[in-house]
């Protein structure tokens, strides 16, 4: 197999004295979609923050396109080609949608390419074009998520980190957004690392998945095979024995929609 675009090796990350990530390793192959599943508090966001440079790991390494990036500043890592769609969207609330997108292209110096990409993201999410001159803070949660994805795309990243894009959105919106994520991956060749609690959606779009529990990877397999595993069905999809006894084991469900 070819060298992965991103290789995370044995990282340990702390919040003060609290060890949040306890030796996580994962590979993201060129052009693939990889997902990391985990319940609330498992450490998914911390893994992404460690990759994008907002947090430094105490141990381990993060290698992007053959280069160690684990101690670099986030703006530098971003310039290397890693886009980040953070948890909670983090749009600039008092800037317009268009200004937000322009900020996504802040590091670029090719106005023609930027204008072209603006049209591309408006093509992916036509609602953003309608709201182009509205303040981002006035958008709905789903629209803000679309904006956050588009804003990251404006930098033309080769790897995009997505932190729970489905959080707080209706199932219909979630599948709409995931369709676009897949298109971005296929059409623009952007490699995707998707972190999710919503295992159902994530396993459908991704090729390979990791399961994170309390800061450790406890399972790693192709998504097709993960979907068949009893533990995954029970803890992440909440479908075990459903129907057999005519009751949903709702107490065991980990994902609330």
């Amino acid at each position, binding site marked *: 197999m070819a060298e992965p675009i991103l290789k995370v090796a044995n990282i340990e990350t702390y919040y003060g004295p609290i060890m949040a990530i306890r030796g996580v390793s994962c590979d993201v192959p060129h052009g693939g979609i990889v997902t990391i599943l985990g319940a609330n508090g498992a450490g998914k966001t911390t893994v992404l923050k460690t990759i994008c440079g907002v947090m430094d790991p105490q141990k381990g390494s993060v290698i992007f396109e053959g280069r160690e990036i684990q101690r670099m500043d986030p*703006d530098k890592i971003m310039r290397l080609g890693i886009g980040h769609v*953070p948890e909670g969207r983090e749009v600039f609330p008092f800037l317009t949608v268009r200004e937000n997108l322009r900020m996504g292209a802040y590091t670029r110096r090719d106005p023609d390419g930027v204008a072209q990409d603006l049209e591309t993201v408006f093509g992916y999410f036509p609602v953003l074009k309608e709201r182009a001159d509205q303040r981002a803070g006035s958008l709905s949660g789903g629209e803000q998520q679309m904006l956050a994805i588009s804003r990251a795309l404006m930098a033309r990243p080769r790897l995009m980190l997505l932190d729970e894009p489905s959080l707080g959105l209706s199932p219909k919106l979630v599948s709409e957004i995931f369709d676009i994520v897949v298109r971005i991956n296929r059409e623009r060749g952007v490699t995707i690392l998707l972190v999710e609690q919503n295992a159902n959606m994530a396993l459908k779009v991704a090729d390979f998945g990791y399961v994170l529990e309390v800061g450790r990877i406890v399972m790693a397999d192709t998504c097709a095979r993960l979907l068949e595993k009893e533990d995954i069905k029970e803890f992440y999809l909440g479908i075990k024995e459903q129907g057999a006894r005519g009751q949903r084991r709702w107490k065991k469900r980990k994902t609330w929609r």
Partner: protein
Amino acid sequence: MATRATDPCGRTGRKLAIFLQLTLNGLAVGCIYGLVALGFVLIYKATELVNFAQGDLLMLGAFVTFMGVVWWELDYWVAFFIAIVVVSAFGALLDATVLRRVIGQPQFAVVMLTIGLGAMFRTFASVTWGSEIYTLPTPFSGVTVIGGVTLSHQYLSIVAGTLLLCGVLYAFFTHTRIGIAMQATSQNQLAAYYMGIPVKLIFSLIWAISAGTAVVAGVLLAPVTLIDINMGLAVALKAFAAAVLGGFGSIPGALVGGIIIGLIELYAGATLPEGFKDTAPYIVLLLMLAVRPQGLFGTLARKKV
């Protein structure tokens, strides 16, 4: 309300003239408070630091201009320009060397630090330029009389200068890439990092702009209050009140707050007994905060930087 009723020739026309004059002067003084308040707000919105040395940057700007005009016999505008450049650069340097280290520290540490820096600037000024009171010769010494209203050019120049500066800043913050990036950084620092915006450089630029704004305020104010090492203190205190009145964090609020405080001060000085001139703005502030604790433009109306 604008003039004492004992005036023997108290015809309404004359009263009106005095009222208009007071209004112009109040507006002008208010513009100065507004500009200094703007400096407070810009820095606070971006870095969450409150810079109590803002008034002393104003004083430094006035002194550098004075030194250029009187000691080196430079043209007023040249000296003014040099002062803006020098003090802005100093503001940026201050951020890059000292203040960056205290971001995220408890507010009282920051407050103490900036108060201390202000005291150092005053000491530096008294050693360098002396502690007398100086007059800055300006091109704005004349008056224009329109229909019995005497408009002094000193005050007119303050209002015009403030309008011009605000226009330039507005255009900069809304129409340039770096200006919009400053707004973005003020609104969400983490997301700014994710966009590859050089956040630290942006902070230094914001300090430079705040310091430059203080210089403009100081030089415009110099003919009115004269120049001395303590000129920034009283102004900064009122400007701080103006920023709070406007809802600390709102730029239009800072300017409107400044103008309100300037007008109250002048009207109170003309109509109320001695001593109320300096108290009235705080009384109004107190009443306003009791009714609307978030300030005039607080929370909801925040928009620019």
